């Protein structure tokens, strides 16, 4: 039974290229995923912690499909996981990711955004009262547009020329 483990990582400790961090305009998220299940129903932190988390932890490392959790009895099919174990395991799992090297496979920038994605127009499966529009309609109504960033922008240049180096992670 697959399951997932969530961890949060300070980007400064990930030894990511500085321009990758400073080049981002806003929040970003890191994920190291495999096929798994969401823990959204079982992982809750006190709401009072959120301002602190947003300020100090701008990136979140997500590792899931960690079947051994189930074998160890730390998780079951209803996805109840002890958060103390989760915190400890997220550290070790983050270190598992340290040895991995990631290369850029796909990116969408500027008007690339309008290719490579399916624009879904069906009714909201979650029964939201929303009218999902096609790409053409979204563009004509100015609901979607590409922001052009030059390839020389530090954000893209560093991603293209560097793999993610986690060696400085402590």
């Amino acid at each position, binding site marked *: 039974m697959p399951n997932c483990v969530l961890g949060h990582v300070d980007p400064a400790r990930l030894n990511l290229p500085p321009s990758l961090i400073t080049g981002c*305009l806003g929040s970003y998220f890191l994920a190291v995923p495999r096929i798994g299940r969401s823990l959204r129903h079982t992982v809750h932190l006190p709401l009072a912690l*959120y301002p602190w988390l947003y300020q100090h932890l701008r990136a979140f490392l997500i590792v899931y499909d960690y079947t051994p959790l189930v074998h160890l009895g730390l998780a079951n099919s209803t996805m109840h996981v002890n958060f103390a174990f989760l915190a400890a395991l997220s550290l070790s799992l983050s270190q598992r990711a340290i040895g991995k090297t990631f290369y850029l496979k796909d990116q969408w920038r500027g008007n690339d955004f309008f290719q*490579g994605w399916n624009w879904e127009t069906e009714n909201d499966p979650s029964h*939201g009262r929303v009218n999902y529009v096609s790409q053409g309609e979204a563009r004509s109504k100015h609901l979607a547009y590409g922001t052009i960033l030059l390839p020389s922008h530090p954000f893209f240049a560093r991603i293209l020329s560097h793999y993610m180096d986690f060696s400085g992670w402590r």
Partner: protein
Amino acid sequence: MRADDQSIIKPSARGRDSVRISSQNAYEEAIFVLDLAHMPTGCATWPSFWTKSQTGPWPVGGEVDIIEGTTLRLSRLPF
């Protein structure tokens, strides 16, 4: 991408104009960098960013919500 935040929606309409996209490529193990300049908050908003498996809908294949914030419920962030 954004949702229409100007129009007054008729009760008979399907709903407010918005956008929902999914990648055509799939990835087994990867780092995703989602660079957001702004994410809406407030009543009736539902900005989301999630992955789902190709083997089937939840719970057959699994789904991982990375961002899911409805209205003011910050607790929907999965950490």
